[in-house]
């Protein structure tokens, strides 16, 4: 009942014309940019983040979550019509989605993806409420030692979030933490890695790093060739699903939703793993599994639902613990910090109105997406015909304006260029950017928690293992490391594509 009251309060904040408009714009732009081949949700949020500058925290975060959901849906369109998955989570959708499009059933595939995403988004958000609030209340018991151990555990999930190689993911994470040490040290006020550049005293700006590594680097990779996209041509009349299509996929949607949420809520597991597992289960329970890979509608419905409910699941560790489990939630965490909010145990206590408005906006965002997406499937399908040559200069320009507007200084623009170039090289070297971004956010928090914990314990390192919650968290981290090192998990990881959620 208490939740319901808080949620209603959240709706009263969101249901203002301005906030609704922000949610609509976020859904639309997220879908339009998410449609671009190769651009996943992290890149989409990073690129469009500047559009929220100048807003208050609530409308800004409403727009950002709408971008997130929109980008997820946009990725499905590209996957189904072009066979070019924009993110790891869509890879499995391509197997049946593209086949359906080739058979003239693109509308059914796109429609079922939209309906599945809507259902999963709504159910996933309810799941978020029922898990997130108790978890946040429990985490209020955390002191610095517990928080340090939690961050260590969160950092170790980096190896799951990243690409195929554990070593490369760890290197990316270590480089991220190292970047977080740039600036004035809070213990003695010593300038670290500043070398007389005053702009570095406050550290490396998170937004510039995110825009460079996710936004510009993706654009550079896509711009290597003069890209000519040839989406499958679909007749206008074929662009919507039939009732039979929807009924056929109802159980697949339900199973995908449950699996997606549970997997997504685990830090680091992400929507790629969720969509792969749900596809595997769907194939396993199917009466005719041989249809899979040849245009089975359940092969689209289940992973797309899992993909979307994993988004809601991923918000659990972000909102309750302040630990991002994926690249996209790391960008969102950065955005929250940018707006002066402190994600984690205290967020519900200190900024309850904001959090409930954010949760309410997730319901609204999903409703807007389904209202917008079903009738606009033709528009999104046709938008794939806009030449990429016109799209990428626009993306670069948005990033430039975003960087400049942060401090009305061209310094941030230079940083975006530098990190764009670094991001491009990292991509070519197969080094995942997500662990770096997550570590850049968590690194300074970890150092601060370590400082506080050591101070309180008068320098005794045993504080981390003598406090039950801290010891449990470190134990989980240890178990997770052992699991990751095991041969079976390593083999499964090798099957996964790079994750950009």
């Amino acid at each position: 009942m208490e939740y319901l009251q808080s949620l209603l309060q959240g709706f009263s904040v969101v249901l203002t014309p301005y906030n609704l408009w922000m949610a609509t714009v976020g859904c639309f732009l997220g879908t339009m940019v998410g449609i671009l081949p190769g651009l996943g949700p992290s890149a989409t949020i990073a690129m469009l983040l500047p559009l929220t500058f100048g807003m208050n925290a609530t409308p800004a975060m409403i727009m950002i979550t709408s971008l997130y959901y929109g980008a997820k849906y946009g990725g499905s369109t590209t996957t189904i019509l072009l066979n070019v998955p924009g993110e790891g989570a869509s890879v499995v959708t391509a197997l049946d989605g593209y086949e359906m499009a080739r058979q003239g059933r693109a509308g059914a595939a796109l429609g079922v993806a939209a309906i599945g995403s809507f259902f999963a988004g709504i159910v996933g958000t309810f799941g978020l409420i029922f898990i997130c609030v108790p978890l946040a209340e429990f985490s209020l018991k955390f002191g610095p030692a517990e928080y340090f151990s939690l961050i260590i555990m969160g950092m170790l999930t980096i190896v799951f979030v990243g690409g195929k190689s554990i070593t490369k993911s760890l290197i990316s994470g270590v480089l991220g933490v190292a970047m977080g040490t740039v600036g004035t040290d809070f213990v003695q006020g010593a300038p670290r890695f500043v070398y007389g550049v005053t702009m570095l005293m406050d550290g490396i700006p998170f937004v510039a790093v995110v825009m460079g590594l996710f936004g510009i680097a993706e654009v550079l990779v896509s711009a290597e060739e003069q890209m000519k996209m040839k989406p499958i041509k679909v007749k206008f009349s074929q662009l919507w699903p039939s009732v039979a299509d929807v009924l056929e996929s109802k159980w697949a949607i339900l199973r995908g939703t449950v699996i997606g949420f549970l997997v997504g809520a685990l830090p680091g597991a992400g929507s790629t793993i969720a969509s792969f597992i749900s596809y595997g289960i769907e194939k396993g329970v199917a009466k005719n599994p041989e249809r899979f890979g040849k245009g089975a509608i359940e092969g689209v419905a289940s992973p797309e639902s899992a993909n979307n409910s994993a988004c809601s699941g991923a918000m659990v560790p972000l909102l309750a613990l302040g630990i991002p489990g994926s690249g996209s939630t790391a960008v969102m965490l950065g955005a929250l910090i940018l707006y002066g909010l402190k994600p984690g145990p205290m967020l519900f206590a200190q900024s309850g109105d904001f959090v409930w408005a954010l949760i309410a906006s997730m319901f609204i965002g999903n409703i807007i997406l389904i209202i917008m997406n079903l009738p606009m499937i033709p528009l999104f399908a046709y938008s794939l015909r806009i030449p990429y040559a016109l799209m990428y200069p626009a993306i670069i320009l948005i990033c430039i304006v975003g960087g400049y507007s942060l401090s009305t200084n061209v310094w941030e623009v230079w940083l975006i260029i530098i990190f764009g170039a670094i991001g491009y090289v990292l991509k070519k070297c197969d080094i995942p950017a997500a662990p770096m971004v997550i570590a850049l956010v968590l690194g300074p928090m970890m150092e601060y928690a370590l400082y506080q914990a050591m101070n309180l314990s008068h320098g005794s390192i045993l504080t981390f293992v003598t406090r039950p919650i801290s010891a449990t968290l470190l134990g989980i981290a240890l178990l997770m490391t052992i699991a990751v090192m095991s041969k079976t998990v390593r083999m499964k990881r090798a099957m996964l594509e790079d994750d950009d959620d």
Partner: protein
Amino acid sequence: MKKTDRNFGIVCLGLSLWLILEGLRWDYTSGFTPGPGFEPFWLGVILACLALFLIFDSFRRKDSKDDNKNAFPEKKALFRVALILIIFSGFAAIVETFGFELTVFIFVVLILYFLESYKIGKSIFYGIAFSGLLFLIFKYWMQIELPHGFLGI
């Protein structure tokens, strides 16, 4: 990919050395707590271990499908990427002198004409369209302060 891993490992080894040396310049501890040198030092040590493992693994592992591919694209594609970065850097260098609208126009025309082989007329048309549209969005709708330049716009 093996060669790329090796080269990347060497770069990381260099970075780790830098972190360790810089870490040693600052205090390792400060009273009960770690000092400013603690984290850079240990990050350097961990990075060095990981870099050595990456280099060692590139010699040890069997060739995979990825190992037989070139990590970086051919010269023509790399040239396109370099050119985009150069034009982008040029933008950053001149935007405060020329102002936002004029620089956007130049940026778009250069990219479309030289990189995307658009005709000059079409490139100019899109240059004006982009410049106007971004001006409307950022300046009027979002009221973001953009560089004015010598033209005052």
